[in-house]
């Protein structure tokens, strides 16, 4: 009985404890709400107060000393954060040197360096930057395993992000120092900062990191390093040439792929003169005949940006590569009006034994504008390969080509004749879902004459889908095509049943 009482007493005390914690949690919410409200009120106030000072500093209207005197007059954490935020926002929008100097004089850089590298090492780094003091190597950091833990990394990662955004003389030192940090989170932040601040970090360093990642010597995620690398512009790519001589095919592949991304994210159309000449030469002479199919394939996608006769010749060669994957990328590379001269080769790729290549060839031709689309339609009308034709139908529908050609139906023009032939072939292939839908759309975007002509074309090889549409049309009272549909149905009832799906093409 005594033990039961003891148990009950324990339960009762636990209950009281839990209830006390519950009350604390309610209090925590209330306190947090209030403190956040107060914090943001003060921060907004500080933003209003100091925003103009920073504008004047960046515009060169006041000196750094004056700005520091004004901005140093903060009496709360919220105001201090506001000043930090305003200055950091300005770092990437011009005035990087002035803003960095201001941050330094306000003591923010000291704080961040201490957070990222520890107080002593932080002071050494600052002395090195500010006074040119010699900098000893940091040696093997202690507690590497502990420092890798996320719980100890978040603050360092945030500090490294801020330090990496500073003016080049500062950021360069901090970014190199952060490379020694064992934490993957800090390393990711560091790499992202390197990509954003190209003045502070040379491309060679990033390429070396990329090589280490590919070779498995670094734990950094490939995506992060690649993202940093591809923030370069095409004319900055000189350092790539020596790295492209790497004996490891995987390294060459990743580098070529990075160059492709750089070229493809460029806002304007490029030519060979936008790239360093040795790099162009490497692609046209070595890239196209690299032993690795991945390198050849990606090289095609880079070469397309050269827009030169030599590039056309190289692409033409890659279009005939023995490897399906290379042909696929070469075809995709040709999807550019400049390479109109390669249209013949592209049409031959529509007959490629591999469906991915055929699909890509159709898309490439469709992307070449009117001449490409005409070649595509001509090929579609001439081709006997069912798979290639089905692929063509899909791409022509996705690109909206069929819907664009339908209004010409029923007229006495060459476009009408071409449209009729295309529709006839589609019906023959049994690909008449879109056409049947158009026949049913009264008062839609297509005239009755177009619908009537389409109905006649669809009657060439009626399939169950179309017959359903025909019945539905025949039952309508107010549709001008219902009489035509009814007579078609009567005509069919009097003739043989429609052919089975497999025979549709032959029937057409």
């Amino acid at each position: 009985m005594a033990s039961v009482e003891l148990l009950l007493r324990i339960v009762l005390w636990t209950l009281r404890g839990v209830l006390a914690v519950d009350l604390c949690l309610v209090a925590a919410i209330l306190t947090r709400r209030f403190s956040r409200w107060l914090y943001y009120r003060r921060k907004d106030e500080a933003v209003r107060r100091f925003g103009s000072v920073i504008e004047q500093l960046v515009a060169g209207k006041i000196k750094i000393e004056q700005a520091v005197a004004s901005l140093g007059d903060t009496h709360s954490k919220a105001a201090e954060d506001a000043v930090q935020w305003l200055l950091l926002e300005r770092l990437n929008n011009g005035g990087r040197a002035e803003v960095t100097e201001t941050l330094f004089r306000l003591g923010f850089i000291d704080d961040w360096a201490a957070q990222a590298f520890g107080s002593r090492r932080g002071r050494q780094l600052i002395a090195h930057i500010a006074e040119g003091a010699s900098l000893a190597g940091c040696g093997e950091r202690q507690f590497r395993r502990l420092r890798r833990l996320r719980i100890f990394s978040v603050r360092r990662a945030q500090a490294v992000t801020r330090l990496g955004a500073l003016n080049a003389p500062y950021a360069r030192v901090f970014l190199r120092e952060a490379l020694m940090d064992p934490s993957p989170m800090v390393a990711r932040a560091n790499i992202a900062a390197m990509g954003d601040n190209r003045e502070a970090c040379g491309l060679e360093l990033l390429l070396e990191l990329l090589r280490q990642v590919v070779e498995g010597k670094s734990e950094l995620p490939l995506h992060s390093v690649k993202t940093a690398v591809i923030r370069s512009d095409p004319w900055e790519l000189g350092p790539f040439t020596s790295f492209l001589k790497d004996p490891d095919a995987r390294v060459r592949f990743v580098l070529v792929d990075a160059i492709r991304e750089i070229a493809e994210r460029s806002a304007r159309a490029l030519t060979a003169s936008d790239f360093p000449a040795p790099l162009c030469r490497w692609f046209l002479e070595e890239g196209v005949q690299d032993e690795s199919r991945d390198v050849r394939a990606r090289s095609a996608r880079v070469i397309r940006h050269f827009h030169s006769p030599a590039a056309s010749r190289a692409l033409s060669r890659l279009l005939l590569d023995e490897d399906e994957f290379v042909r696929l990328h070469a075809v995709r590379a040709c999807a550019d009006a400049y390479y109109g001269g390669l249209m013949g080769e592209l049409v031959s790729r529509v007959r490629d034994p591999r469906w991915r290549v055929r699909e890509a060839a159709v898309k490439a031709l469709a992307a070449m504008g009117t001449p490409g689309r005409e070649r595509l339609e001509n090929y579609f009308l001439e081709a006997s390969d069912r798979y290639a034709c089905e692929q063509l139908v899909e791409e022509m529908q996705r690109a909206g080509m069929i819907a664009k050609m339908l209004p010409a139906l029923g007229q006495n023009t060459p476009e009408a004749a071409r449209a009729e032939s295309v529709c006839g072939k589609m019906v023959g292939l049994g690909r008449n879902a879109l056409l049947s839908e158009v026949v049913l759309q009264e008062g839609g975007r297509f005239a009755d004459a177009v619908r009537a002509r389409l109905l006649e074309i669809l009657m060439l090889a009626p399939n169950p889908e179309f017959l359903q549409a025909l019945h539905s049309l025949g039952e309508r009272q107010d549709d001008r095509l219902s009489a035509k549909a009814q007579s078609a149905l009567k005509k069919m009832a009097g003739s043989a049943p429609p052919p089975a799906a497999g025979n549709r093409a032959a029937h057409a």
Partner: protein
Amino acid sequence: MHSALVRLVYYSDFVFLGYFALANLGYTFLMTLSLYSVSLHARYAAGRPFRHLADSPVTPPVSILIAAYNERANILQTVLSLLELDYPEKEIIVVDDGSDDGTLEDLIRQFRLSPMDFIFRERLKTGRPRGIYYNPDYPQLVVVSVAHGGKSRALNVGINLARSPYFCTVDADCLIEREAILRLMAAVVQSHEAVVVSGGIVRIANGCQLRDGRLEKIGLPSSWLELCQIVEYIRTFMFGRPGWNMLNATFIASGAFCVLHKEAVIGAGGFSPDTVTEDIDVIAAVRRFLTEQRQKFRVTFTSDPICWTEAPRSLRMLGRQRRRWQLGMAQTILRNRDMILNRRYGATGMLGIPFHVLIEIVGSVVEAFGTLVLIPLSLLVLGTSWKIFLLFFALAVAYGTLLSMASVVMEEITLRRYPRLKDAMILMLFAVLENIGYRQVVTVYRAWGVLQSVRLRRHGQWEAVKHEGLAVGA
């Protein structure tokens, strides 16, 4: 006879108490891990490290798959929200699973879709779709119509049509926050290991106001049932899954919002129609497939990409939903029972699945049995004092309250999706109230689901939970 019954009840009481202690110990352990994980992630995410991912052309494309069956009430808002997503390259594939409420017609009308003859490669056996609809003006959207055949088959049709290396399953009644897929994919691309599944948080949108596929105003519903579910969801996603993720033992990721690696899923045979919760089952199947292939992989959970969904508004629908979830989990565990305590499956086999078996499956039956049978029997047969039971009941409620309240506080500190103080206080209140009545009712439904699986009673493939639609702003 009487003495045997007394002994049985006496020992059963100990089993019940043992379960109570074990479950709460487990939850406390998970709570501690989750607290650490979620707060760290929130601090890290505050620096918005995902922007690089959005700008990078190296970010892999994602196909978003929605299987819709009679989802007319929500489907347009869902698709609109997906079209607005902040992600560099995406395609949205809606598979209408033979709805008869006009879901397909609404989609066709809204997006002016036309039937098209696209090539359909049947990598997973599904049969051919009835129609594929497309509009070149919305090149990211493809709608597929199939004869009614269940959610698993509908999703497999979507996989067959998907052109991206990853796909994200989204329920038809869900709204995804703008950066959510970006945040899910961050876990995929920033990892050293091959991440094959990446899951996020699901929240309840009842009481929120929508406009053009976006949450215009986040609020709370007035019904107690929906409020209890909101607290329950917050607790599950803040104090459960992050903990399992830290242990690398994630066994469940909500199919309402989850990114999967396409080839891994195809290799594992796609979504199986053999269980009623295909989302739980597919993760186990992928895990099995990749383990047999001796590949290194990871299943992750991230605590800030948020998907909003509509919760059941009636007790009947809630019961249906919970029975189905529990039945599905039990079916999946039964199908994969060789994974239990199997070292090949790592922390999932040694920790994750055994916990789910003991606490979620067996535990729900023990809890329901204890509440409905054991306590009354103890009172009648053993003559145990009411006070003792009341005290233990109070302790159970207080501990449950502690977990729920701590979750709400965690939400407040990290995601903070409820901006009004009044809403936060209501959630705190319901963190207490949901432990009295609601939790017991849900336990009974869960136990019912487990018993259904024991009796091998097959439910319909798609036990529909009726949605009434969310409030749309004028």
